[in-house]
C-alpha cells in the first residue's frame, strides 16, 4: 500500500499545482462561457448567448484585425532587424560584448517604462520624431493620434523592445553553422551576400521558424503597449484582442463574455501555432 502511494506523493506537488492553477481555472472559465456573471451577483445560465454575441461583436473582430495588422508589421520587422544585427554582432567587431548587452537591454526593461518613453518620442507637437521631421521640412505625423499610424507605431516600438531577445536566438543559430562551409564558399569566390543567402539562411531556418512562433504568440498577447499608450484609441485602431478581453472582464465585469472571448482567442492561437508547427516539421 505504502509502495503504491509513494509515486503519487512524489508527483503530487505538480498535480496540485496543475489542478489549482491550470485545470481548475481553465475548466471554470469554460463553464463561465455559458453563464453571465458580474462577480457580485449570482451566476445566470445563458446557454450559447455569449458565443452568439461574440460573432456579432464588431469591436471584437476589429480587435482581431488590429492584432493581425500588428503581427503583419511586427514579425517581419523583428526577423529582419534581429537577423541583420545578429549577423553584425557575430563579426569580429570592437566592443562586441558591449553591443550584445546593449541590444538586449530593452528586453529586460519594464514594458510600461519603454511605452512611456516612446510616448515622448511619438508626441505630435513636442515629440522628438516630429521635431526631426519638421526640421527637415516634412509634415508632422500623428504617430499615436492618427488611426492609420497608431498600430504601426506600436509595432515599431514593440520590435525595438523585443529585438534583443531574437538577436540572441539568431546568434546561437549563426554560431551553429560550421565554419568550413564558409571557407569552402570563399575558395569558390562567393561574395558576402551569396554566403549569407546560400549558406547562412538555409542553415538557420529552424531558428527563423522558432522566432516566427515566439513572435506570433508574443504578438497575440499584445496588451501593455496599447493599454498604456493609447487606451485602444484612436477610433479603436489599437484595441488588441487581449486588451478587449481585459476590458470586458475587469472593466465591465462581464466575466462570462470575457471568458468566451478568451476561449475563442486561445483556440485561434492554437490553430495558428499548429499551422506553423506543421511547416517546421516539413522543413525538418
Amino acid at each position, binding site marked *: 500500500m505504502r509502495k503504491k502511494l509513494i509515486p503519487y506523493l512524489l508527483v503530487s506537488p505538480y498535480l496540485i499545482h496543475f489542478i489549482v492553477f491550470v485545470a481548475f481555472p481553465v475548466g471554470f472559465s469554460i463553464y463561465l462561457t455559458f453563464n453571465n456573471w458580474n462577480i457580485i451577483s449570482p451566476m445566470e445560465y445563458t446557454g450559447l448567448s455569449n458565443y452568439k454575441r461574440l460573432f456579432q461583436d464588431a469591436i471584437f473582430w476589429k480587435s482581431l484585425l488590429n492584432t493581425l495588422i500588428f503581427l503583419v508589421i511586427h514579425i517581419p520587422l523583428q526577423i529582419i532587424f534581429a537577423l541583420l544585427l545578429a549577423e553584425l554582432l557575430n563579426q569580429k567587431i570592437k566592443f562586441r560584448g558591449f553591443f550584445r548587452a546593449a541590444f538586449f537591454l530593452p528586453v529586460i526593461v519594464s514594458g510600461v517604462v519603454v511605452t512611456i518613453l516612446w*510616448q515622448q518620442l511619438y508626441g505630435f*507637437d513636442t515629440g522628438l520624431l516630429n521635431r526631426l521631421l519638421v526640421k527637415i521640412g516634412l509634415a508632422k505625423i500623428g504617430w499615436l493620434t492618427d*488611426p492609420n499610424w497608431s498600430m504601426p507605431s506600436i509595432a515599431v516600438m514593440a520590435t525595438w523592445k523585443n529585438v534583443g531577445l531574437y538577436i540572441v536566438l539568431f546568434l546561437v543559430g549563426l554560431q551553429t553553422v560550421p565554419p568550413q562551409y564558409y571557407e569552402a564558399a570563399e575558395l569558390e569566390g562567393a561574395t558576402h551576400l551569396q554566403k549569407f543567402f546560400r549558406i547562412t539562411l538555409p542553415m538557420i531556418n529552424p531558428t527563423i521558424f522558432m522566432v516566427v512562433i515566439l513572435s506570433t504568440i508574443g504578438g497575440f498577447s499584445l496588451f501593455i503597449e496599447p493599454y498604456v499608450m493609447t487606451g485602444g484609441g*484612436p477610433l*479603436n485602431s489599437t484595441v488588441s484582442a487581449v486588451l478587449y478581453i481585459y476590458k470586458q472582464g475587469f472593466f465591465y465585469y462581464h466575466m462570462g463574455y470575457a471568458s468566451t472571448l478568451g476561449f475563442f482567442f486561445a483556440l485561434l492561437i492554437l490553430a495558428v501555432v499548429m499551422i506553423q508547427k506543421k511547416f517546421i516539421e516539413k522543413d525538418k
Partner: protein
Amino acid sequence: MLSCSSDTQVRDAKIIYWSSNNTEEIQFARYIVDNWNHNNPLERVMFQPVPEGQSSEEIILAAVVGETTPDIYSNMWEGDVEAYAQAGVLIALDTLAGFMDFLHERCDSFVIAEVTSIDGHIYQIPWKINPIMMIYNRNIVRSLGLKSVPKTYFDFFEAAKKFQKDIDGDGYIDQWFGYSEVLVTWWQRFFDFYPLYLAASGGASLVKNNKAVFNNEDAIKVLEFLREVYKKNYFAKERLSARQDVFLDGVIATRFTGPWEISHSEKFKPKGFDYSFQSMPVPDDHVGPVYTYGDPKNIVIFKTCPDPNLAWRFLKQALSEENESKLLEITNQLPRRKNLDSNPKYAGYFEKNPKMKIFAEQAKYVKGTDQSPVLKEVFDLISQEYEACVIYGKKTPREALNDAEKAVNLLFLK
C-alpha cells in the same frame, strides 16, 4: 493595515469603518473615530483606510466577493452604488429610523432624487463633492483684453482665437486656450462632455428608467462646441499630461478641473501667477443656473454589518456640521449639504480659502450620476462616439448621439 488603531480598539470594536486612503482623509477619519470612541467607549468603531490596490473600486469589489467588506465605507463613487444595491450587498438606509428626516434636513429634493435607487430605496448618504469648473489664468485673460472670463461658447471661441499661437513658427499651434485629455477612457468624459452637458441642460440625465435620454438638443450643442474647439485647434489633440504642468507653464489658459487643483497650483505656481475658477461654458442662449458634475463620493453600509443602527448613529455624528467643518479644513473637500456657502459654521474656512468659496457657490448646482448598474458602459459608449465626432470629426453630433443612444439602449435590452 491597522496602524491607526490600537489592539484594544480592534478587539472591542463593534463597527469597522473604511475610509479613502489619502493622507488627509485618513486624518479626518481618525479625528471622527477618536471622538466617537472617546464618547462611546462601549460602542467602539475601528477605522482602517481602504487597503492599497490599483483602485479603491477594485478593492471594494474584491471585499464584496470575499465577503470581507467593512461595515461602513465612506468613499463610494455614486455611479457604483446601483450595481451593489442590485447585488443585494448594501443596506437600504431609508429603512433606518430617522434617516429620511436627516436626509431632508441635509439635502434638497434634487439631491435626494439623484441618490434614490431604481427600486425606490436609498442605499447611500450623499457625503462630499469636488465640482468640476473651469480654471483660468487671470493674467492671460487680462492680456487678451477681455472684460471677463468667457462664459458662453461664443466668448470662449473669441478668446481662444486670440490666444492660440504658433510660437516657434513651424506652422503648428503650440499654445492653446484649453486642454482636455483626448483618451477614450470613460471617466475622461467627467472633465469635458459630461459637465458641459449638465451645464447646457440644467442638470439633465443621461439615462432614465433604463433608457438613454441624452440624445437631445443640449447634447448636440455640447458636441458641436467641442468639435469646433478641436477642429480650430483651440484645444491640443496631443496628450500634454506627461509634460510639465501646461496650465502653470502658460501653454494653456484654461482647463476643466476640480478643487484639488488649488493645492497643486499653490505649491507649484511660478511667481506672479494668478488664477481663478469659473462655471463651465454654456450655449449662447442658455438661461438659468449653470450646473456641473460634482464627482460625488458617498457613504454606504454593507449588509455584513452586525449592527446597522449603531453604524447609522456613528455616521449621523460623523456628518454633523462641526465634523464637516473639520472635513473642509483637513481635506479641502466640500460636504454635500444645503447652504454650504451661507452656513456661518463654514464662513471662517471660506474666508481663509476664497477660491474654495467659488466651489461652494457652485455646489448648489452640481449633479452626480444617474442610477444605473451599467453606468460605466454608458459613459464608455458615449466616449467612443465622442472620440469619433469631436476628436476625429468622423461623425456629425447628430449621428454620434444617434449611435450612442442605440448602443446604450441595447445595454438595457440584455
